[in-house]
């Protein structure tokens, strides 16, 4: 996973609440067995008019946002389906950071697994930034994970919270499975204890799942 330390980039604006992962990447792109190449599916339905032609109003079709790497949006971003294809598609488009007043839990987790930093700012701060983005083509922000700050071109700094453990993993680009595997002894000890306490959770189900055809 790519580490996230500080990042400066153009901000794109998606002024909608409750953007669900079905919108971020619709179902037809979930048939893939790869994590790459999903850019084509990003906001697929919203990018197009009913006749299939590109909707020039939609933010991703606007020239000013083509090079954007930070997405600024509204409450409950990433709600619905757990599909990790959503952060994969955002990453494939070049987004490294999403700023919103709130996120859905699973999407928020999925971002950290993929080198994307989800930043929660207060609703009034997001509104203020939205005004700035609308008013300035090429508007950029600097996001500093170490300091937990978002800095605007006018020098105003917004602070955000992030769990120390998640922060450390993302900041250093750590493989979280590798981290967990370092605790192999603790996992084994847990399993030994639980096998005695709750033996019904430890049988080999495979002995009872033999094939049954229709």
């Amino acid at each position: 996973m790519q580490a996230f330390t500080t990042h400066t980039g153009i901000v794109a604006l998606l002024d909608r609440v409750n953007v669900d992962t079905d919108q971020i990447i619709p179902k037809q792109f979930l048939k893939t067995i790869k994590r790459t190449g999903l850019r084509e599916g990003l906001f697929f339905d919203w990018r197009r008019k009913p006749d299939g032609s590109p909707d020039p109003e939609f933010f991703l079709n606007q020239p000013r946002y083509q090079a954007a790497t930070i997405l600024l949006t509204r409450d409950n971003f990433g709600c619905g389906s757990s599909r990790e294809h959503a952060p994969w598609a955002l990453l494939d488009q070049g987004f490294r950071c999403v700023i919103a007043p709130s996120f859905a839990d699973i999407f928020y987790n999925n971002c950290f697994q993929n080198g994307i930093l989800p930043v929660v700012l207060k609703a009034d701060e997001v509104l203020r930034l939205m005004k700035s983005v609308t008013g300035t083509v090429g508007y950029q922000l600097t996001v500093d994970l170490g300091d937990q700050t978002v800095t605007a071109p006018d020098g105003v700094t917004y602070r955000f919270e992030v769990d120390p453990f998640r922060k450390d993993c993302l900041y250093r680009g750590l493989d979280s499975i590798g981290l967990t595997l370092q605790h192999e002894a603790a996992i084994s000890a847990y399993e030994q204890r639980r096998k005695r306490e709750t033996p019904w959770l430890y049988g080999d189900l495979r002995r009872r799942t033999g094939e049954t055809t229709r």
Partner: protein
Amino acid sequence: MGASTLFDKIWESHVVRTEPDGTTLLYIDRQLVHEVTSPQAFEALKMAGRRPRRPAAALAVPDHNVPTTDRKLPIVDPISAKQIETLEENCREFGISLFGMNDVRQGIVHVIGPEQGFTLPGATIVCGDSHTSTHGAFGALAFGIGTSEVEHVLATQCLLQKRPKTMEIRVDGVISDRCSAKDIILAIIGTIGAAGGTGHVIEYTGSAVRALSMEGRMTVCNMSIEAGARAGMVAPDEKTIAYLKGRPLAPTGTLFEQAVLAWQQLKTDSNARYDATVTLRAEEIAPQVSWGTSPGMVAGVDQKVPDPQTMPDEKTRSATERALEYMGLTANMLITDIRIDRVFIGSCTNARIEDLRVAAAFAKGRRVATTVRAMVVPGSGLVKQQAEAEGLDHLLREAGFEWREAGCSMCLAMNADVLKPGERCASTSNRNFEGRQGAGGRTHLVSPAMAVAAAIEGHFVDIRHWG
């Protein structure tokens, strides 16, 4: 340790270790696997040279991307076929149990887990699917995860988690005749909103929840995610134990008796505190119909479509305007004046045997409106088999419903079961997002009884005063 909630008890019994900031290495007892969110996890596992730690604790099934027509025919879409083959290959390579396409036990992952007795009280259960919350109906801690976390659980049987907050949703009283678990959960989401449960695990309590069957509890817990919650749960009781007894993968004999003793302890202590509590009266819950493009946009069938002009703030007003435009509805029109083109009875929310019994009872001796195409997709091959043994398929077919093979089908329309642009569907599924059932399609979430009545009348009706 003082008084604990049901959630606290399960969480604490699964802590392997805790980081200084409270991040917990949580042990996962069981994992369900399906074809859509697992291929990248298996691929990454292989690339890192890792093996599943406890393949015996996982169960896999293709469901999202399977056709619901004749299973003897090959899958037409080569990409869908490839995804299902990949699941089969991965399960073979790593020694994971799989109910394949032609296994009678195949079905929606959240239907087969409980049906097989794979889902057990007190267990931690995950799946790369947000509706994993369904399994909480058994007093399990069950939640959806992303593909990276699927890989994490395969490799380590653990997950790194921040402890969520707890929320009690208490529904007391007796629900109106012909109202159901679906109406309860839609009313809850309408009350707390699509993000009302974010960061929380919900425990559903109260006499109306206790009165629900296991199927009904699954319907309620299933849609916890639509309120933004990580998980939903109901404390196990005699119904839970009776449901599980004799299921193929449930413990047997003295092991079952030992388990029951432990399961009976799984309840919130009387003086335990939740971080938040919400209460509803069951009597006040009318049959629900969603009118918008977020599950929180829902109203009683006796209500009108809301008017954006009466909304308190700009954000809600613009979201409502947008939703009404997409849905092709007019502010202040009666919900019962909404005419529909399609009906879908199915999904992990409402495709269990009880749902099909209700559907068949309302369809019996009636006829689907000539303007409506209606389909029933059982939740599993075994549900289908049971329904056929009871003659439910016959009643539904006679009434003009299509009777299909098991799968997720038009809940997410990943297979060939799709709405056309502009088509309006009364659906027993869980998400009314734009395009969820097909680009440009319009979804109204309802209970099975409400879906059948709408199929027959061609528009929504108040099931309490119908027929």
